[in-house]
């Protein structure tokens, strides 16, 4: 459904997206993960043809993207991160307007159906200006689904919602997927993606770090332990003694501190302390930092990036 080839976007010398190769299959719920500013929105804008790529190609629904080919766009529904509305319109007028643009048949019934699905049926004649953030998000969903799109692109779809609404929308997304729609969800919340998606791509600083099944990614991020070890000497000279250990994935030193990433299949702390002792160091303290999936992602650092990429190399 979506395929990109070396998609790159540069703004005034700043590279927002670099050599991105995405592949979303029909029927997928694809999670597009990355922290804020990673290049998710730019990528979506390029997918929609609203931002011209600096290089690379985009294929949507099997066709190469062309800004003038509006027929492809009729088969896509989009919910963007921020909701933009004509606030002077009522919700119903708003949907009628878009129905007319997308030439939706049986407008009235379809709109009723959608209002019921998103739970706005009783508010349909209110001005959108009077809507809460959550209601606006739901309305945006309704608009995106209005023309029965084959592909649904959701950019941070639940950003402003309360837990009940999130549940409601998540069910809706799953329902739509069951009906055969391909769904592309971008988010900086792993938990969100975790519950929905079968396949995930992780983007950071414009690069796709990993693209795999949810379960694989999940294992990679959770199968590590980070230890901070304080010793009595300058740490750097003893780097090799630690790095060569088989269970150590990465190691860094700053003055007298080692930051070591270990495999999490068992507790390697005693092995580590023995190795350090043998190289002539006395351990002053040792702290474990075990990250949850969410945390690991939320605080994406150079470490778990290298972690992701390192494992990629190994596998």
């Amino acid at each position, binding site marked *: 459904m979506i395929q990109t080839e070396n998609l790159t976007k540069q703004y005034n010398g700043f590279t927002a997206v670099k050599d991105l190769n995405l592949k979303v299959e029909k029927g997928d719920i694809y999670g597009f993960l990355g922290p804020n500013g990673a290049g998710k929105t730019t990528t979506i804008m390029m997918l929609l043809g609203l931002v011209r790529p600096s290089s690379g190609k985009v294929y949507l629904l099997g066709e190469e993207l062309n800004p003038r080919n509006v027929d492809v766009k009729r088969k896509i529904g989009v919910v963007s991160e921020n909701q933009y509305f004509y606030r002077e319109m*009522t919700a119903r007028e708003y949907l009628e307007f878009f129905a007319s643009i997308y030439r939706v048949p049986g407008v009235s019934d379809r709109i009723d159906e959608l209002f019921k699905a998103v739970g706005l049926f009783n*508010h349909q*004649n*209110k*001005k959108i200006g009077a809507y809460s953030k959550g209601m606006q998000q739901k309305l945006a969903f309704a608009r995106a689904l209005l023309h029965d799109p084959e592909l649904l692109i959701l950019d941070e779809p639940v950003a402003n919602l309360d837990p009940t609404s999130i549940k409601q929308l998540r069910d809706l997304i799953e329902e739509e997927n069951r009906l055969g729609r391909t769904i592309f969800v971008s988010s900086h919340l792993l938990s969100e993606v975790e519950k929905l998606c079968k396949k995930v791509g992780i983007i950071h600083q414009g690069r796709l770090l990993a693209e795999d099944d949810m379960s694989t990614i999940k294992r990679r991020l959770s199968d590590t332990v980070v230890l901070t070890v304080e010793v009595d000497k300058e740490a750097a000279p003893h780097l090799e003694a630690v790095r060569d250990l088989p269970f150590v994935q990465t190691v860094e030193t700053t003055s007298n501190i080692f930051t070591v990433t270990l495999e999490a299949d068992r507790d390697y702390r005693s092995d580590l302390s023995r190795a350090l002792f043998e190289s002539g160091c006395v351990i002053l303290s040792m702290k474990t930092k075990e990250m949850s999936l969410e945390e690991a992602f939320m605080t994406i650092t150079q470490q778990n990036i290298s972690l992701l990429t390192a494992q990629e190399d190994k596998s």
Partner: protein
Amino acid sequence: MRIYVIAICLIAICILSAGGVGAQAPARREQLVYSLTAFDGASFSKSFCPPSEDTLYFIADNSSVIDARKTFIYFWPITRRYMAGFRSLDEKLPGTIEILKGGEVIQTLQRQTYTLFYPEGYWSDKATLYSDQEAERRFAEYQSAVEAFNRKLRDYYEEMRIYREEFNRFLEEMRIRRESGEEGITNIEMPQEPSPPDFVDFYASEPAQGFILNLPVGNYQIRLRCPDGRIYEGSEKNVVVFESRRTGGVGYEIIPGNRWTRRESVDDPSWIIHGAGHNVLYFNPYHQAEYNELYHNKLEDPQNSGRIERWKWVHIDPIDDVHMVLSRGEEILQQIERAPYFVKQIPGPELGYEIIPYDDELLQRGYQPTFESYQIELSTNLPPEEYTVSALQDGSAEHLPESERSIRLLRKENANYLYPIAFFPLVFGIVVILSRWTRIDR
């Protein structure tokens, strides 16, 4: 920082340039000027072209006179104009004028004798230019007419002297008869007072020398060539020869009955006469032509200014062999003939005047008519509608082209209703917005 430096530089440039404005106060200089007797559509305008003006303007296919002379030129800052001291220096420069078009000499002019002939007398604007022998002949005609007048005047004075003597004799005779007791009507014949001769009813100016120029529309250059073949320094000028944009129209001068000294012009056919209440209007029709304002102003005096995008009407000739009609749609309300009128001063504390038709009584009392005109009365009985005035050739039912003007009688008492009318879009808006409010959930 840099932006300030640049700003200071810019300001400095402006100040320096402004400094130049005051610095160049020109002094009195002996300079070549072209003196102009330019046909202006109706008559001839006399002016001169100082060295500061590089273009002369003339009306196409009509003769105008230019002459090149040396005089003192000085700038008169109060009127911001150059003045010429022809009294202290006025020397004609010998030579010929060459007219160039596209760099090629197309005509060479020699000085010719010319006269301005005013067939309706010295005070009339209407003039014709005659050259060479015709000029001499016209002037000779005028001179002989003046001489004839002088002879008649001498005769008149002689007749007057004789008349006075006869009249005195008559009085003496009467006195004697009365003293001798004769009463009633006497049978002595009273001497007839002679009437003075009429002054010459045309005028011709004294023949002068100049270059007579008559060119078709276009842009030209002129220069003065000395008999030895050299060109006079400062004699090169551009010449713009133009024509009228619209001709053949009829314009009107209107004398409102209640203020005969302040007249109105209705030249452009699109202009409308707006009236309210009772009005008596005296219409004077003219043949007219429309010229570019800038060109025509520059023609009248090269130092005049004007705007090239504007146009002005020039009255050429009064029209007096027509009658006028006032009509409403197809219906003719009044047919007006030209008639003489007399402006009667009202003495006493309410100094004013009254315009009355000139009649035999006024004639017998020795008054001359003040003006002749077409009188149209707009009475208060006429309903406030649109009327048309137009001029018709005598004995014809055809309107003179472009002679129609609209007269609108206004309801000026309704002026105060204009403001309420302006509110209607707001009312409309209120209705629309309220109807919208009722359709949405609050």
